[in-house]
């Protein structure tokens, strides 16, 4: 996804001379094509994420569209107040690009696991928060969001896996349905969506048919689409590579509560701080309850509970 995103950024930069790329000294074997083609619009600012966002604020006020690039934790958490008081407060077109959501950085350990980026960025009014599910959607998202006059956060996965049925679709403030089924709605955001699809396959083997919706546009939030989707199912399960509070599960629960929808919501997300043992992304997803198997299990438990209550 990362390379697709950068390819599309290269194309945008060729069309729009205001596009700049700033990196906090990360992006080896990824950013070189941009640096070579547009050296005057590429800055490695050094290991200095706060200054990177401050610079982008000054550049954007003067008419540039700077993309600031780092690993998702460093791109969002270290300079968070600079993002708040800079692009968010001034409503400027700075694009914060955080690479590696959830457990993408696997063996690198917990400092590199972006588990609250979605929640904290979603807390900022004006901030568009976009977590594409696969490379094709990442391309569409960067292009669609380019017209936005205010700030955008992109959470970009590292992997190449495509979500079947997504077909490069992306719309601001919309859900994209990639699978239809009447028993349960699965809603996913970001690259973990490939696991969500796998969970739907596992469920189908047990005779449970799931609708799978991709929520790449966490803000602006697809409030109407979520409500419309949840009107037709008894159980909804959200799935994200993030802490359980503040992200997609919270968003969906907010819609359900505020609109009084008669649906039970189960949130598949990380519920404890990962510490101690680490491993591959797959191993971590399993351990913290966000693997395909864990999601399928959560769906079955939620359906059982719903049936017991009914």
């Amino acid at each position, binding site marked *: 996804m990362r390379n697709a995103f950068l390819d599309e950024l290269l194309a945008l930069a060729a069309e729009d001379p205001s596009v700049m790329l700033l990196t906090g000294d990360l992006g080896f074997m990824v950013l070189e094509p941009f640096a070579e083609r547009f050296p*005057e*619009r590429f*800055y490695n*600012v*050094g290991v*200095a994420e*706060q*200054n990177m*966002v*401050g*610079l*982008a*604020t*000054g*550049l*954007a*006020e*003067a*008419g*540039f569209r700077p993309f600031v690039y780092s690993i998702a934790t460093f791109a969002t958490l270290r300079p968070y*107040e*600079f993002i708040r*008081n*800079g692009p968010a*407060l*001034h409503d400027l077109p700075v694009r914060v690009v955080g690479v590696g959501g959830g457990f993408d950085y696997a063996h690198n350990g917990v400092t590199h696991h972006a588990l609250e980026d979605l929640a904290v960025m979603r807390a900022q009014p004006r901030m568009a928060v976009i977590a594409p599910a696969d490379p094709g959607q990442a391309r569409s998202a960067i292009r669609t969001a380019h017209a936005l006059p205010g700030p955008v956060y992109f959470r970009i996965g590292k992997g190449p896996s495509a979500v079947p049925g997504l077909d490069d679709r992306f719309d601001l403030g919309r859900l994209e349905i990639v699978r239809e089924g009447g028993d349960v709605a699965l809603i996913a955001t970001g690259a973990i969506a490939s696991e969500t699809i796998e969970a739907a396959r596992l469920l189908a083997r047990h005779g449970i048919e799931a609708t799978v919706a991709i929520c790449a546009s966490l803000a602006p939030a697809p409030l109407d689409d979520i409500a419309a989707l949840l009107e037709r199912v008894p159980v909804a399960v959200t799935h994200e590579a993030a802490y359980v509070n503040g992200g997609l599960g919270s968003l969906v629960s907010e819609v359900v509560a505020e609109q009084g929808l008669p649906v039970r919501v189960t949130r598949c997300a990380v519920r404890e701080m990962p510490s101690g043992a680490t491993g591959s992304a797959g191993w971590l997803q399993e351990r913290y309850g966000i693997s395909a198997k864990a999601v399928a299990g959560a769906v079955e438990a939620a359906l059982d509970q719903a049936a017991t209550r009914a």
Partner: protein
Amino acid sequence: MRVVRSQALAAQIRLSVLQQSKRAHIGHIGSSLSIADLLAVLVDEGGLELDRGPVRADRDRFVLAKGHAVLAWYCALHAVGRLSAEQLDTFAGDGTDLAGHPEHVLDDVDFCTGSLGHGLSIGTGAALAARLQGSARRVVVLLSDAECNEGSVWEAIMFAAQHGLDNLTAIVDLNGQQALGYTSEVLDLSDMAGRWRAFGWDAVEVDGHDCDAIKAALDAPREGRPRVLVAHTTFGKGVDYMQSRIEWHYMPMDDTQYAAALEQVS
């Protein structure tokens, strides 16, 4: 002649700072008084070009990184007729555009500041933008000395030096005080100029209350490096009982104190 005018502007800024602080019953008086002369030079003719041609984007940028002293900026704008007396009287009131830290809803505030350590990064980005756009506009960032406690200030210092941004000027208001104590006792930043110089800046030490010296330091030819004016100032300058007294970082004045202060700056 021009310097005489700057001095008169500075006197007017000090008077307005006292009047508005008293009316609104708020503090940050000492921090505002210490930068009155610096701001007078910046808003005087030959200082910042706040209206360069018909396009707003072409004007010089000013970042008051030490946003807590914004009352002095409002008073400076008022002194040169860019802010009406009526507007100034809304300072710190309900629904005002004149907050206790600068907000860009006001025409002559380019950037919201108030959280220390942000301003120099933003100003450095603004200077880089001007250079990339081939614009002659300049960027001035006014920092407090204690603000240099913030690591992000040094990130910006390194970047500006690395890229030789000589359209960027930082001014450090070296008044030696911070909220809870003297800077030398909190985090000692003595030889401030030497510190910036070691990071690649053209550092000039000036008397921050000498308009002539300030002006000369701003205008001296550049040689491909950003410049910092380390402005030696007196906290609470102009009011004897406030000068170099920690409590005047936050304290408002009572009636007796106000009368005494007015007498001294008038």
